[in-house]
């Protein structure tokens, strides 16, 4: 089948063996250069990345031309069009993903954002997770609520100490900071619910002097001084 062989033969005029040898030698060359650049650290950083990517693209073109013989078949037009379109689409896929995902990472990394915000505000814990705003807890202070009285009435503490409120009465207490009825948040906590017979510990991460009270019985109140 003589005609059939012609259909396969992409290089009618060229010497086919020469084409493969040239391609092979060039490919070796374009593999070893980026390798030695990386191993010897001749250049570094983005320049290096750009260089080795450049070599990869050149080597791809070399192989496309000398091994795959793109553009030298009997009817190469559509093959070239599809190849170019695919390369374009790969750039869209990979480039687009990186573009979008980097943007999303910087905007949307939830833990990062909350942590940064908490640290900025000096909030030591969110839920029960420490944010890292307080490094190393120092001392634990105790306030016992019994028969509607806070004991001790005044607590003196340093920043990042912890305060345990122990409710020994038979009813729930909701500890709020500031004067009743207008409350202010303390350390990220609006109101601290302490159930009857339970304890609750908060981290004292804001310095200053604070009144705190039971929101249900405002006369049950205490005073808190947090020094830096």
């Amino acid at each position: 089948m003589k005609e059939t062989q012609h259909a396969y033969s992409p290089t009618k005029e060229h010497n086919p063996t020469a084409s493969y040898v040239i391609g092979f030698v060039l490919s070796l060359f374009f593999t070893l250069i980026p390798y030695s650049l990386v191993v010897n650290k001749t250049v570094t950083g983005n320049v290096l990345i750009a260089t080795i990517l450049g070599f990869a693209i050149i080597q791809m073109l070399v192989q496309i031309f000398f091994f795959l013989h793109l553009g030298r078949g009997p009817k190469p037009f559509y093959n070239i069009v599809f190849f170019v379109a695919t390369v374009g689409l790969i750039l869209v896929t990979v480039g687009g993903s990186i573009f979008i995902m980097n943007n999303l990472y910087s905007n949307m990394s939830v833990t990062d954002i909350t942590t940064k915000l908490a640290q900025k505000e000096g909030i030591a814990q969110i839920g029960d997770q420490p944010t890292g705003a307080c490094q190393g807890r120092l001392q634990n202070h105790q306030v016992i609520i019994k028969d509607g009285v806070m004991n001790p009435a005044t607590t003196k503490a340093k920043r990042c100490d912890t305060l345990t409120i122990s409710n020994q009465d038979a009813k729930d207490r909701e500890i709020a900071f500031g004067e009743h009825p207008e409350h202010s948040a303390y350390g990220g906590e609006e109101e601290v619910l302490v159930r009857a017979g339970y304890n609750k510990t908060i981290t004292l991460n804001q310095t200053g002097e604070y009144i705190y009270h039971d929101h249900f019985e405002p006369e049950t109140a205490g005073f808190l001084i947090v020094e830096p």
Partner: protein
Amino acid sequence: MREFLIGKLSGRALPHEWFTIGGSIAFILLVVGAIVLITYTKRWKWLWNEWLTSVDPKRIGIMYFLVGGFMLLRGGLDAIMLWLQQALASGSSQGYLTADHYQQIFTAHGNIMVFFVAMAFIFGLINYIVPLQIGARDLASPFLNSLGFWLYVGGVVMVNMFFLLGGEYAATGWLAVAPLSGTEFSPGVGVDYWIWSLQISGIGTTLGAINFIMTILKMRAKGMTLWKMPLFTWGSLCSMIMAVTVFPLLTATIFLLFFDRYLGTHFFTTTGGGNPMMYTNLIWMWGHPEVYILMLPSFGVFSEIVTTFSRKRIASYTSNVLGMIGVSSLALSVWLHHFFTMGAGANVNAFFGVMTVLIAIPTTILVFTWIATMYKGMIKFSTPMLWFLGFVGLFAIGGMAGVILAVPPADFQLHNSLFLVAHFHTMVVGGVLFGIFAGLAFWFPKLAGFRLNERLGKYAFWCWIVGFLMAFTPLYVLGIMGATRRMDHYEASTGWQPFFIMALIGGIIIMIGVAMQLVQIIASIMQRHLLADKTGDPWDGRTLEWATPSPPPSYNFTSIPAVSTRDAFYEMKLDGGFKKVYEDIHMPKNTASGIYISIFAFLIGFGFIWEIIWLVVASFIGMLWCLIKRTFDDESEYTITAKEVKAREDAAAKLPSATKSRIQQKEEMGLIEFIRIVLSWAMSIVRRKR
């Protein structure tokens, strides 16, 4: 041992809820009914030889229509269930579905309508029409085509399989967004069914698309340059090129999800450095172009219809083609508009918003070329033309809603609302489904040999358009009022219930339209002699498919016509037709390899779903074996000699004119006439029994 043999399967996997029991019974009844019918009529051999193993794109096209039509009814049932639930579940009433069941239904509805209805009809149309339009005898690789079809059927079976085993489908939305689709939140087999039904049919789509590209680019009749191709072929080419560029992305993405679920990798998980947002990014890279893959052949259908029924050339062929190319290239770079609200910065959102709005330009050009074609044309308002006009109206509404959604600040208000649901239904129903219906009405005489009943077709159209507007206009309003999508219950104080009830009524009217279409087909079959198309050219067509008899012989053309102009057949008719020359014809042999490979692919999926590893391995080996057997079989063609061709054509010409039908009529029957005939037929059976 038991675990090795049947994996996760157990008695609990059998149906035990009302909907799985109902679905299973329906499924089994259908299969048993079909088997009984075929055995009773002794059609097994005929079915196997003439249809199932056929590689004739015309036969495969018709099989696509049948399966797709069945799935349309299946997906439509889902839609009615969703409408009913929303109309009922207000305030203290919880409706008749549980939240979980509701989620499964809308997921299945979306998957079925996009993958197993729209894609099926589009592939059916392309299969049947494109080879005829470009003057080819078959496809570049008839086997690949058969394989693609059977993989699609494998997907269809898989998506209905959960009724019988497992009892749950994915409850994740049609794209199975991560991390909801991960094992942490969806531990059941529902998502696995989703993965494998899409994976199997998706690979079939890729193979089919490669095949059509080969066919269109390499097998056109002599003289038909790219710029003389019929517009439906152009639309199909653009669509198939998009399919080969984005379906690999879907396949890869679903495989990654599969790895997350089976191998415990961390691509889209919330732990281990995985990123669920990457899933959204990748899946929409396929998801957006997918809509245009469906839309572009539909555009092509409309171009053919407008030119034929306006009896004019297309107003500007070049703009039309460039418009389609423009749509397909822009469609590849807009995917982010599906997740504007995911948190990308203003630059990213602005870029993709602008790209999205730009798509309106080529689309508008397309619509203008059609309108300009109609201008001063001799328009005949037959059913295909009505579908086209319905499309233009809906497309304008949906398109404008789309432009609103393309603007990021507006999208922040409207995303995830029923406004969006209304928008994409307007586009997909108005653009794709109407295109398919128009195409089917237009080409039905070619594939059946007789026209469809016009009167009933018009009833169906009006039911569809009125029903559609009633069903989806309220959703635009509801969306703006704040109703979110995928919602199975709402508070009575919202005041939404009247709108939902109106939508339900619209849905019922659409169902009447579907029923009307079924009646139309049955009535047309009853009156097939009256409606017979003897010339092969019932509409005074313009492109080469009308140069063949209806239905065409397996080899399509006795001799391949030489083409010198656009609208080749129209010009030929002006020149006095073309002469028949008899010549040897090479045709592909039928093959069952596609069926076997698809069965093995199905079993691989099934084995993975239920973790039956031996089945996976065995099926994989079986599949490889079939592939090797097939590819190393060099005897896949046979030759029909010129003499045989002539004998066949002469025999066809001598065929005695059709025997008289029992129903003698002068004109096409209407609905009342149809009901009367059916009733009298039923009465006669009852009487005979007595």
